[in-house]
């Protein structure tokens, strides 16, 4: 199988993320499917940033721990990754800032000075040298630059050409028949999915790893026709979202665990008032501020239990960009149709990872609300069989539309009556059943790899990428629940039917999905847990799984 892995490293401020994107686009135009992981500390200038770009013949969603190419804009890019560099690795380096024996030196400083180019264009220069060393045609680079460099294109091209000319062509990366496809980050895919699901407004306060959902949607708000607002804090965010929804606008918010802590009172209000909201919850390493720019899957229980009291909610956990788009679109619709809060539970690896996007794999269903006709006079909390009351939005002549976070009657007026309290609790409970029924219509549990294998490799969220590849390699059955609540028990039992061993992979220290499964009497036999904030490389996980499988 043809595949190439490339590491681009430098200091924060060197434009490593965009350099990684450009390298990914080069491989995209060479016909490869790509996946890119961006690793950076929480600072603005300095430190060590790196992008790992893996390009492959087949669709992938994980990186490897060996590199074919290294683009070093600092010495750390070589020194901090000894395991990734082998004798075959081609190291292209900035000869002013780094040294590497038998590498490809590029005198970026001199080139930039001669071309009167700013320091940040060093990445264009080294990409030029890399393209030559990788045997990527100049025309391909030029096309990528033209499409994706918005500013100072000519100067960037000039600097890249100088880099291209100083490098020696190595063994060329073969061109594959695949066509260039969109490259999306998980955050962008979520944003697109929300739009496809019919979202009207997005409200968020910036927080890694979901800030780029806000940036992306703010950037396209004009062409899509949505409102995007950045209020004073996360409490303001969720309350403003509920205001939008009360007035008839499907609304989503985005945050990470810390911000969601502030939102939980509003989240519970959504449950009680039946005013829907979708929360994009991007996990990072906790507790507290933790590792702000690194990954985790430690908020599953938080998502399941957030908010005081009991109320139905939807929790979905996409694992790649196609699932992110599809499930985001579904979450907007189900949340609105069933009038419940929904959480799109993602993690830094997916949010800020870049993937080749296969549009044809995304099927956005058009879902409709339970058919409950409104009676007159209008009652916001009319009791119905599905538990879902017809929603109206002001202004409606002759209708008084009252929503309420207190226990309330059918009209939305506060009550402390015991019988009414029971009736309304049971009405919301019926919505939970309606919601579970909606989830039952979805393909809520996916199986990859060898469906007949007795060994199940179980994962959720972004680990889908690495697990499906490792499971495929080792001939295991890979099972990924896409909906975590209401838990699709029947679909899950079908997915693991006939298996004799379940090995779970999670980015947390307690095995939260395994604990969730134990509620249903489903036992996990082995847990592979990681909680250092870093995603598994394919080779790393493969070794861990082999160990479990062979030693049982």
């Amino acid at each position: 199988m043809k595949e190439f892995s490339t590491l681009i490293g430098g200091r924060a401020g060197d434009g490593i993320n965009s350099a990684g994107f450009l390298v990914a686009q080069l491989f995209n135009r060479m016909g490869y499917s790509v996946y890119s992981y961006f690793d950076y500390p929480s600072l603005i200038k300095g430190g060590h940033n790196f992008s790992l770009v893996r390009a492959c013949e087949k669709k992938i969603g994980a990186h490897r721990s060996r590199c074919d190419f290294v683009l070093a804009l600092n010495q750390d890019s070589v020194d901090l990754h000894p395991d990734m560099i082998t004798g075959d690795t081609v190291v292209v380096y900035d000869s002013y800032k780094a040294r590497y024996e038998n590498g490809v030196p590029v005198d970026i400083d001199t080139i930039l000075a001669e071309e009167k180019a700013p320091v940040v264009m060093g990445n264009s220069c080294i990409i030029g040298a890399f393209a030559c060393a990788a045997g990527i045609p100049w025309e391909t680079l030029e096309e990528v630059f033209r499409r994706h460099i918005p500013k100072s294109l000519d100067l960037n091209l000039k600097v890249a050409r100088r880099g291209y000319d100083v490098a020696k062509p190595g063994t060329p990366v073969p061109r594959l028949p695949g066509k260039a496809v969109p490259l999306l980050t998980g955050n962008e895919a979520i944003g697109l999915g929300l739009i496809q699901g019919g979202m009207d407004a997005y409200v968020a306060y910036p927080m890694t790893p979901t800030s780029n959902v806000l940036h992306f949607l703010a950037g396209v708000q004009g062409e899509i026709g949505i409102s995007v607002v950045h209020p004073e804090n996360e409490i303001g965010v969720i309350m403003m979202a509920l205001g939008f929804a009360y007035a008839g606008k499907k609304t989503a918010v985005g945050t990470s665990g810390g911000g969601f802590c502030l939102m939980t009172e509003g989240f519970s209000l959504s449950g009680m008032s039946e005013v829907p909201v979708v929360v994009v919850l991007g996990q990072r390493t906790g507790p507290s501020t933790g590792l702000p720019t690194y990954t985790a899957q430690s908020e599953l229980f938080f998502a399941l239990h957030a908010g005081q009291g009991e109320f139905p909610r939807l929790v979905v956990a996409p694992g790649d960009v196609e699932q992110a788009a599809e499930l985001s679109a579904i979450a907007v619709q189900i949340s609105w149709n069933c009038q419940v809060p929904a959480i799109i539970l993602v993690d830094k690896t997916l949010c800020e990872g870049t993937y080749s996007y296969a549009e044809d794999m995304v099927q956005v269903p058009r879902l409709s609300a339970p058919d409950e006709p409104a009676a007159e006079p209008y009652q916001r909390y009319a009791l119905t069989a599905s538990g879902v009351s017809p929603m109206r939005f002001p202004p409606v002549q002759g209708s008084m539309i009252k929503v309420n976070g207190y226990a309330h009657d059918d009209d939305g007026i506060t009550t402390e009556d015991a019988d009414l309290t029971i009736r309304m609790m049971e009405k919301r409970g019926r919505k939970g059943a309606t919601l579970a029924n909606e989830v039952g219509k979805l393909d809520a549990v996916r199986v990859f790899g060898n469906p007949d294998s007795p060994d199940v490799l179980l994962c959720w969220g972004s680990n889908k990428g690495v697990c499906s590849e490792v499971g495929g390699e080792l001939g295991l059955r890979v099972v990924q629940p896409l909906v975590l609540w209401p838990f699709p028990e029947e679909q899950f039992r079908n997915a693991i039917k006939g298996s004799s061993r379940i090995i779970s992979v999670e980015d947390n220290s307690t095995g939260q999905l395994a604990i969730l499964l134990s509620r249903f009497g489903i036992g996990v036999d082995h847990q592979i847990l990681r909680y250092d904030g870093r995603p598994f490389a394919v080779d790393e996980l493969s070794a861990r799984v082999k160990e479990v499988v062979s030693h049982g």
Partner: protein
Amino acid sequence: MAEETFITGAQNTWCPGCGNFSIEFALKNVLAGLEKDGIARENIVLVGGIGCHAKIADYLGINSFYSIHGRTFPVATGIKLANPDLHVICCAGDGDAYAEGLDHLIFAAKRNVDITAIIHDNRVYGLTTGQYTPTSYMGFKGKSTPLGSFEEPFNPMELMLCSGATYIARGYTKKMDSLQRVIREGIHHRGFSFVEVLQICATYNNMTEYYKPRVYDLEGHDPSDFERACGKIREWDYNRDARIGLGVFYQVDKPTFGEHLREKEPLGGKDRESAIAKILESKS
């Protein structure tokens, strides 16, 4: 429509003599007047916080969002942005607006969002049975401060002036005419209208005897003059003894939040699909 229909059948549980009755009465009259002027009741939304004041959401027969403690303003802002044709009125208490949700109040003023804030300022927590609030006078003996509070109150009107509110007025629950006037004008004002209402708490903080000789109607005051407004607002600081002005202290015209959103309607169906196709094309 008869104004009686502005009151729902919900059982009223305010204490006898509560100042909230006056605010409810004033607001009901203002709404009836608006309806006569062509602003139909379905175009009004009332947002309440949590506290004695917020029961007004149950009692007034209009659209309402009975929110949580301190969080009226962001809800109201969302409603206004979603549908700029609605008139959105926030009823918030002093604990609500000045303690739990002060950040939202300041930002609503800063944005000059076109909503009306009516603050039921009885200078005590009533529903939690008598604790000091941000506007209680220094030395207030409440259940949480049996030795007297050690904090000076802040002047909410001064806070609103420096935060960007474009309409700042004060009413008093025992002066019905001026109370109705400042509420009505506040609703008509384009921008963030802040109506501070001195309210009697009949059970925990009945200041009738204190207010009675001190309140007076502002006369000959130019509300468009920031410096004069500032001076007038500082005449009484909610702590030391002074005359207490009632009426409009400050009013200016400024662009409101979300005006630019007005022309835009969400694209549906095909349009959205082609916009998405364009975005995807740019990412390849």
